[in-house]
């Protein structure tokens, strides 16, 4: 039984309770008074299928699939404009990240969403050595859809690459070896342990 169906069984009809249990800062969702400031403050606002305010209302109205399957939360650039202006002091940025993480964990988030895929590439990149391998990150991003499209994208960005190389802000050797923390192995086990503790806490194990 996948994690997702487990969730549905457990929270029969109350999606809000499910969010409060499993989503970062989810207990704040009920505090929204639908004033519209967050939706209006978001720099990427026009690109949200459902602005944050609507997502909160949809959660209360139990629209689980539309919310968890939506592209909206992935449009968040973490610019904190909504948090500082929200009259109810909801930590909206964190809730959006929490919802995206939860949808991602349940496998309900849109498969081809570029930010979701880039975020995974980013995490795997830093988990490997404890620090960002910038070159590795860019290449993995360009080639995530296979070799052909990767070459096309890489050549399109060649100008930027050359500029960075010229100004010594790109380390070609990183392709071969990237030094992060002294003991990457221990660092990776640290993250693995952290994930286990969190899953146990949130009953998401299995």
């Amino acid at each position, binding site marked *: 039984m996948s994690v997702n169906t487990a969730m549905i069984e457990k929270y029969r009809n109350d999606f809000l309770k499910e969010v409060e249990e499993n989503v970062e800062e989810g207990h704040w969702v009920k505090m929204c008074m639908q004033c519209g400031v967050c939706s209006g403050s978001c720099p990427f606002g026009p690109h949200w299928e459902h602005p944050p305010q609507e997502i909160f209302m949809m959660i209360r109205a139990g629209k689980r699939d539309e919310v968890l399957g939506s592209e909206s939360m992935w449009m968040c650039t973490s610019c904190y404009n909504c948090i500082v202006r929200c009259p109810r002091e909801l930590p909206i940025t964190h809730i959006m990240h929490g919802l995206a993480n939860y949808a*991602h964990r349940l496998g309900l988030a849109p498969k081809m969403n570029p930010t979701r895929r880039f*975020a995974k590439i*980013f995490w795997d990149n*830093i988990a490997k050595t404890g620090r960002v391998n910038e070159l590795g990150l860019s290449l993995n991003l360009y080639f995530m859809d296979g070799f052909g499209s990767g070459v096309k994208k890489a050549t399109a960005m060649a100008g930027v690459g050359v500029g960075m190389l010229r100004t010594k802000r790109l380390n070609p050797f990183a392709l071969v070896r990237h030094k992060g923390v002294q003991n990457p192995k221990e660092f990776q086990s640290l993250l693995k342990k952290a994930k286990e503790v969190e899953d146990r806490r949130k009953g998401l194990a299995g």
Partner: protein
Amino acid sequence: MAKKEYSFYPGCSSERKASASNYMVSVYAMCEKLDIQLNEIPDWNCCSASIGYAEGGELPRHVMNARNIALSEQSNSGQDIVATCAACWLGAKETADRLDASEQLLADTKEVLREAGLDVHLKNETPIRHMVEVLIEDIGYEGIAQPMQKSLEGIKFAGYVGCQTNRPFGVAGESFENPVYLDKMVETVGGEAISDYEKKVTCCGGALAFSEPEKSQKQIKEIIEAAYDQGAEMIVTPCPVCQMNVEVYQNQINKHYGTKFHMPVTYYSQLLTVAYGGSAKEAGLDGNIVRAKKLEEIASK
């Protein structure tokens, strides 16, 4: 001035040959002139920035930041932690707040860190600050002016504070909508600041410049266009992500929108280093893809 010591958290982009290495060059040069000693946190790790949320989840990200704090408390105890990149500053500060607010989270974090032999009290006693806070609060504008040897007179700057350096913590006493400290810093070193720069605190797209290039580049275009409209010759910013996003995509934006942007994007630390008599190299001006010629001229005088 008495020597000031800080526990320094450089962040991934500041490493040698990384995308913000020239930021580091100018920061070190600036600090040297201001008698600030930066003791790098040994074996620091990435703060997972904000984009790490999707795969990382809550606790792993907090553990990463907690590890840095623990390392700092261990080897640089008593020193404020200073970050030059907004994402690192935010990551560490948010973790410190969250751990302080939730016993559960603190206990879980300690349990995990104990595995790496790191015991940590993490009672949010170590202040976590941004470099601009240190400059304004500890050094002060007179302090900033003190080591000046050359004025940046004749250059008009658009002070682009961006988002995470300004929100949700920002600098004490500064408004989220209209922070003025960057403009004051520019004026302190003789430059001319556009105080009502329209896109002062608008987000450049951050990490989504990678995953949603068209949407971010539309933002970046407006940020640069507003600078031109208001007569700026250069943009100055405190954030490595803003610097890279606003600088490196200018050609692509020109191709896409038919604009003719050629706007240099500098760091406040570069301005100060030049003002303190530092050479173009010491100010990391050689790292600017769009050359800041006027600044280089002053540096070479």
